[in-house]
């Protein structure tokens, strides 16, 4: 009896037909794969003096991968489904692919000088970074547990190595090992949950799982599965109480890697969470909603309170990114109420985009200033306004945007989140919104503390010679600043992402 099914398994294999592949839809991923190999082999044949070319090349690869994203968006007909709807390229995934590629490009600009001057294996670094970005790009299209798992590991494993990139630095070691151990453990827990999801519904395809789950009539194993899956993903987005790795890893890792982890890797975690929750777990929202509610409330609050106590800027930004994660979680709490589908997606995506701009911007400034001060303390920003007014003004824009002050991008991101949550209109939603409101004020306190140093404190060591900002970081700053301001003043540019009915429409089909 044990192997009763074996006959039909064989039969299934015999029925296998090669899937048709839409090469255009896969083009962004293919360009990245070609790029990875290109950089890897060119790097092998290049002398140490010419390694700088790797950064340029990597940047070009990201831009090249952007082209098919644009053409797909312009053609923009119905969603392109492959492998029986397990890998889908639609409006939702295209927007996210664009965000990841753009963020990756800015990250290359940010890393360039740091790696060049430190002499840290430039070619390998960019190869790993591209692998990780490939995982993210895949994640946006993955609509199947296996695909999500593969994408998640593809983006995580290189990130573990990047966190430990400064091999001889024990802090970087510590960052890498902590990130790695907790990361693998979380993946294992996630997998355990996934195995139950698969086992109780008989499919790994998200929409099939969604169709099999019946709210109010969940099996015990299914509840367990939901808890494990959400717990595993909570680690990736560093939600409290699964956040303990984040501050140490962020502080110890090289700063560009920290920016990478806190923006791109985190966003990918949210994409996985969004796809799974919206497509597969939505019917189980009697379990999902309370769990996400608690996660969101805890994440914002604990992240903020811890950030208040930090004296190191990177560590403060780490906790701030934890708490921003709580805000991004907020809209997901109201899934399954009213017409929340579209507006939830819009709120999360718009937040991810704006968050990418402002957080990358803030990290760029940290990198630019640390090149001179060689310090990560918040006090090292003292007197910045006096000797580098340009950087000071930009830092003001980014911090104020993170704090959510209009008319900057961060405001519209938060506004959208609140709007989506309040749309649900029940008590839980209102309480969460009020917790969020209090948290914006707490957050303002520590962002303003940085600005206080920038504008009002004297330079700590009296050194007031101007800062030289390398052109690549200048470019990164320009992109992020323009994005932050523009999206705040004319949010209509991105709020049109509201036309993403594909993902939610898939459920109904």
């Amino acid at each position, binding site marked *: *009896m*044990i*192997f*009763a*099914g*074996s006959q*039909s*398994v064989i039969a*299934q*294999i015999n029925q296998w037909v090669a899937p048709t592949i839409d090469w255009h839809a896969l083009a962004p991923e293919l360009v990245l794969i070609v790029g990875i190999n290109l950089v890897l082999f060119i790097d092998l044949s290049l002398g140490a003096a010419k390694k700088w070319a790797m950064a340029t090349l990597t940047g070009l690869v990201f831009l090249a991968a952007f082209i098919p994203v644009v053409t797909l968006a312009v053609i923009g007909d119905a969603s392109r489904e492959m492998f029986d709807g397990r890998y889908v390229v639609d409006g939702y995934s295209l927007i996210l692919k664009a965000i990841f590629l753009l963020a990756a490009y800015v990250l290359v600009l940010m890393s360039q000088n740091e790696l060049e001057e430190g002499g840290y294996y430039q070619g390998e670094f960019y190869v790993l970074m591209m692998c990780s970005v490939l995982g993210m790009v895949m994640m946006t299209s993955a609509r199947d*547990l*296996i695909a999500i*798992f*593969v994408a998640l*590991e593809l983006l995580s*494993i290189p990130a*573990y*190595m990047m966190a*430990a990139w400064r*091999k*001889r630095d*024990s*802090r970087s*070691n*510590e*960052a*890498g*090992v*902590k990130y*790695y*151990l907790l990361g*693998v*453990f979380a*993946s*294992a*827990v996630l*997998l*355990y949950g*996934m*195995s*139950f999801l*698969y*086992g109780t519904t*008989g*499919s*790994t395809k998200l929409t099939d799982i969604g169709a099999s789950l019946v709210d109010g009539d969940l099996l015990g194993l299914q509840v367990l599965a939901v808890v494990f899956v959400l717990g595993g993903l909570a680690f990736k987005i560093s939600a409290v109480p699964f956040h303990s790795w984040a*501050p*140490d890893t962020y*502080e*110890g890792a090289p700063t560009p890697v920290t920016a990478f982890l806190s923006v791109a890797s985190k966003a990918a975690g949210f994409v996985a969470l969004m796809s799974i929750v919206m497509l597969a777990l939505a019917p189980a929202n009697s379990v999902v909603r309370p769990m996400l509610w608690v996660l969101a409330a805890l994440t914002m609050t604990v992240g903020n309170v*811890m950030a208040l*106590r*930090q004296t*190191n800027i990177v*560590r403060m930004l780490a906790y701030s990114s934890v708490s921003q994660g709580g805000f991004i979680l907020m809209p997901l709490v109201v899934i399954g109420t009213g017409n929340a589908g579209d507006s939830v997606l819009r709120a999360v995506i718009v937040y991810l985009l704006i968050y990418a701009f402002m957080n990358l911007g803030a990290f760029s400034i940290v990198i630019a200033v640390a090149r001179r001060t060689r310090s990560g303390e918040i006090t090292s920003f003292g007197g910045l306004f006096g000797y580098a007014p340009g950087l000071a003004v930009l830092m003001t824009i980014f911090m104020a945007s993170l704090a959510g002050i209009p008319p900057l991008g961060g405001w519209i991101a938060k506004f959208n989140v609140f709007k989506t949550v309040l749309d649900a209109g029940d008590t839980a939603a209102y309480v969460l919104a009020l917790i969020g409101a209090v948290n914006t004020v707490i957050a303002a306190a520590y962002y303003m503390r940085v600005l206080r140093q920038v504008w009002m404190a004297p330079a700590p060591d009296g050194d007031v010679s101007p800062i030289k900002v390398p052109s690549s970081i200048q470019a990164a700053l320009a992109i992020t600043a323009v994005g932050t301001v523009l999206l705040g003043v004319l949010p209509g540019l991105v709020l049109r992402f509201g036309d993403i009915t594909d993902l939610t429409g898939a459920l109904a089909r």
Partner: protein
Amino acid sequence: MLAVNFLILAAVLFSIGVFGVIARRNAVMVLMSVELVLNSVMLNLVAFSQITDSIDGQLFALFVIAIAAAEVGVGLAMVLMVYRNRRSIALDELSEMKG
């Protein structure tokens, strides 16, 4: 049904693995414990594949095996790197940063 026994075995393995991750302070032992959890997952997937009569679980298990191998490769390299720098792989001692 007998397949349930596999699930129970998997659950036991999972519990041992989780306990190991929490209780062990040696990086290699933690790594081994994670492997136990992954094994329980694979056992689960194959058992469910039988129960639900679909091939997806076995495919999934293959993917997990391949990726877990890559993961462990990276993990051991990192443990080695830490050992070189510190002559110790005790996780308690990895606590330079706090707050």
